[in-house]
């Protein structure tokens, strides 16, 4: 990983925006521990979504601009694998690290201590879907100079199911209920994304290369 910024920047953004919430709405943390806030989980997941969006914009841009992308698609024995590895790297450098940090952020936002491990787990289950679905949007918008807004419009609706079940999973844990339904739902979303995204990304990248 020589592009250190691609790991540090999203993480710094997530930390800072979480701090903004903590500073702007101190009531989040001050709530009585026996009545945990269901807001915190939603806020955390929304911030993770936005962070991913920020990171996704540059996912294929550097390779596109340098011509590495066209050489990869032209010469790779199995372009599908190349795309899959790229998505995996994107997840490892953003979603995975975000997931590892999520208990910390959870504490800051006032998520009940007993739900912190579930927070980590929900991130690990849900963020792969964000990288996979986001990769589709990034592949289509990479040819635009300012694709960021269009990327957001394309990808955020796709992120909705992950957001709903991800936040719901943390809340269920906070309220002491079973989290298995949400585990299945998040796992299903990630698996479906895994089945669709590499092919859709490949098609999107080819379209982007066509457009110049």
């Amino acid at each position, binding site marked *: 990983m020589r592009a250190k910024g691609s790991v540090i920047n999203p993480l710094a953004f997530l930390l800072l925006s979480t701090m903004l919430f903590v500073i702007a709405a101190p009531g989040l943390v001050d709530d009585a521990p026996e009545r945990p806030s269901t807001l915190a989980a939603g806020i955390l997941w929304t911030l993770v979504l936005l962070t991913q969006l920020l990171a996704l914009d540059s996912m294929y841009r550097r390779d596109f601009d340098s*011509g*590495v992308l*066209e*050489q*990869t698609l032209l010469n790779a024995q199995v372009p599908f694998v190349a795309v899959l590895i790229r998505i995996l790297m994107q997840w490892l450098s953003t979603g995975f690290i975000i997931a590892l940090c999520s208990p910390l952020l959870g504490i800051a936002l006032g998520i009940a201590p007993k739900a912190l491990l579930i927070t980590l787990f929900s991130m690990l289950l849900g963020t792969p879907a964000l990288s996979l679905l986001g990769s589709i949007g990034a592949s289509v918008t990479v040819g635009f100079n300012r694709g960021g807004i269009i990327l957001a419009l394309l990808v955020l609706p796709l992120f909705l199911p992950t957001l709903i079940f991800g936040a719901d999973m943390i809340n269920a844990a906070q309220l002491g209920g079973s989290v298995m339904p949400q585990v299945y739902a998040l796992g299903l979303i990630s698996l479906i994304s895994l089945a669709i995204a590499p092919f859709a990304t490949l098609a999107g990248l080819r379209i982007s*290369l*066509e457009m110049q």
Partner: protein
Amino acid sequence: MLTLNALSCERDGQALFVPLNLAVESGDFIELMGANGAGKSTLLRTLAGLHSQYLGQYQADAFLYQGHRLGLDGLLSPLENLAWFAGLEGQEIQRDVLLDALATTGVLGKAFAPCNTLSAGQQRRTAMARWLVSDKALWLLDEPLTALDTDAQTLLRSILAEHCAKGGAVVCATHSPIDVAGKVTVTLQAHDELLQQGEAH
């Protein structure tokens, strides 16, 4: 090696140039000339399978494509870029061979520096080293003379001549003629020019 059958590229539904018939055999050097916007780059992209709006047919053997974007990762060194490219082609190449190729094109001194610290000409030279290690016989090159100093231009000529002598073939879009023995010059004629001539008659 490469056959074009009444091939004409389109952009937004407009044919760019008069349909082209061409058969490229091993040993051929095809120089593709034409005004700016005549469709040289688009033709090469079409042959590489990166542009799908065209009329007519073509058939191409395994090729190496060098576009305006060099395909070098700025964070990797020339050596790493070469190794990556060889791996992409499914070749396993000894490090010495890669270093030899970089030495041939005169960027051995920069072999371990990140590519984005290299000058435009040095990056071009690195790209040339990549052609040397490629196992593809057909080379599609888009304006390879760009940013090259006189030494590198001479080097480019000898690399291309040697590749053709070894049974390879080169299709090369260029604005200034490249002196390679036995070259064939194909000039792309803009489609609207032909229409204007037709009206004049």
